[in-house]
């Protein structure tokens, strides 16, 4: 028994391909350990085995070799799914249900009922910003709205672990910023988050730990800061600094055997620009 949120040991998944001699090896001998309370990013190019790994952790696909556990309970046991909420990639739900009915349906599957269920559904619709379309059928939802309702259903039973397969795929910048804030909020509340992504800038902002998969093999693994830190460099960001001040700092650096490598005007990100420009009053109502 371990107290990790997720453990994956010696995991291999081979998909036989019909009429082909060569089977696809989606995951090769993967070992992972995700501690409670951290945000873990599983990164990798298309087809590198991210979704397959997540599905095996959720018990949706059976491993060819090795085992996976959620809070010490084997993924093949139905009970292991009590503590976890899952958002599949490109989620698709019953399109004849409304947003609210969808949440109620999944809530019931998690054993919620009555006023507790109604409360949770209201809270989550609010949280993912779908309150005003709650009684519209999902057939009229856009891709980003489906992603949000998917996120809401993953959180309906207040799981201790949330597994998100490309949570921001198809969501606009404001939405993906919301989802990012949501993940940060989950982490603040002590909830473990395991997410897959190939949007590196986003992963860099929120992940504590990352693992990089390539062709089903874990090629890099570790704490994000440690992985991307350049040991002998330090950055300073100054506001209202005069040229004279910068020159003085430069001189000071040279005198103590350091070197100023770059000196540039700070820029905003395109994302910030986009968010400021599109954040009109209509959104806020």
């Amino acid at each position: 028994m371990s107290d990790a949120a997720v453990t994956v040991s010696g995991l291999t998944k081979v998909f036989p391909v019909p009429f082909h001699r060569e089977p696809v090896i989606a995951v090769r001998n993967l070992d992972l350990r995700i501690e409670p309370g951290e945000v873990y990013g599983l990164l990798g190019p298309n087809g590198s085995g991210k979704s397959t790994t997540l599905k095996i952790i959720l018990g949706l696909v059976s491993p060819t070799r090795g085992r996976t556990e959620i809070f010490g309970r084997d993924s093949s046991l139905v009970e292991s799914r009590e503590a976890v909420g899952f958002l599949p990639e490109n989620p698709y739900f019953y399109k004849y249900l409304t947003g609210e009915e969808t949440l109620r349906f999944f809530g019931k599957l998690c054993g919620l009922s009555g006023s507790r269920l109604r409360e949770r559904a209201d809270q989550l619709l609010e949280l993912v910003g779908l309150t005003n379309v709650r009684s519209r059928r999902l057939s009229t939802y856009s891709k980003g709205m489906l992603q949000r309702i998917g996120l809401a259903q993953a959180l309906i039973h207040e799981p201790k672990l949330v597994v998100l397969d490309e949570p921001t795929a198809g969501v606009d910048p404001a939405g993906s910023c919301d989802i990012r804030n949501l993940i940060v909020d989950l982490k603040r509340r002590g909830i473990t988050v395991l997410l897959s992504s190939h949007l590196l800038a986003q992963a860099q902002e929120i992940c504590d730990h990352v693992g990089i998969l390539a062709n089903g093999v874990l090629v890099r693994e570790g704490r994000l800061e440690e992985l991307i830190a350049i040991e002998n460099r330090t950055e300073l960001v100054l506001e209202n600094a005069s040229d004279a001040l910068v020159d003085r700092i430069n001189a000071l650096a040279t005198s103590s055997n350091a070197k100023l490598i770059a000196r540039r005007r700070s820029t905003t990100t395109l994302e910030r620009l986009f968010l400021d420009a599109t954040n009109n009053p209509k959104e806020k109502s």
Partner: protein
Amino acid sequence: MSNKTAGINRHRSFSLARVFAITTNTLTELTRLKVFYILLIFALLLIGSSVFMARLTFQQEFQILKDVSLGAMSIFTSLLAIIATARLIPQDIEDRTVYTILAKPVPRFEYIVGKLTGVLLLLSISMLVMSAMFLAVLYLREQTVLHETLRQMSAAPREQIDDALRAIRSSALNIDILPGIVIIYLKACLLAALTLFVSTFATTNIFTIVVMVVIYFIGHLQATAREYWLQEHSTGWMTRAFLALVALIFPDLQTFNLVDDIVVGAAIPLGLVAKTVVLGVFYTTIYTFLAAFVFYGKEL
């Protein structure tokens, strides 16, 4: 697991609340199928139109009415059972809705049972609608015939009139219709469960439907074939085992065909009804377990 998560109780390996959630959701899905309404309207029209069929005597009229109506009900529910069930699970797998459901603490067995009971509920709704139509038509025709007879026999002695009315009543609405309807329903349940089983390993919906149509016909001929086979071969244990296997794959649907007896107004012995009901429930249960078994091993 010390801290309580949202007041959720310990996980139960079978929960009626979860099954019920899947059942109602499946029923909603099915009532949105156009084919359901088309078939239902068609069956109702057939039952209603039997009023206008040629008639010589009232006995014949009621016979035709029952024959056509029960026949329509039998075919309609069988067809609906097969068509509605065939795409249920493949559709969920294709749309990946099954991922979100099974990623919740829902055992696969509950998912299968929930889907099936959704179909069974749909079948019972359509059965109720059709039975209501059938009994209403039968009742109206009975009343008409009773009035006509009374008018024609107004001069006849009292006992003669009473005899005539009793004869009409007994050949129209009688209690033997009820087991007939129940058994038609059970046949549909059995077919739905078998279709669900086939759909868990079929690669396309067409395959499932074709297989089910073949099973439907063979199932009706099975009893005859078995008798023929038993004449030709010895009744060793191998033969019996083989026949049992055949009976499992091709259920003896002829057993569920009590319509002919009902039409002629023959009383159906209670023992036979009970035996058929038990057989229907048995088959349905077996197929449900087989479907769940295959679904457990299935790569989604």
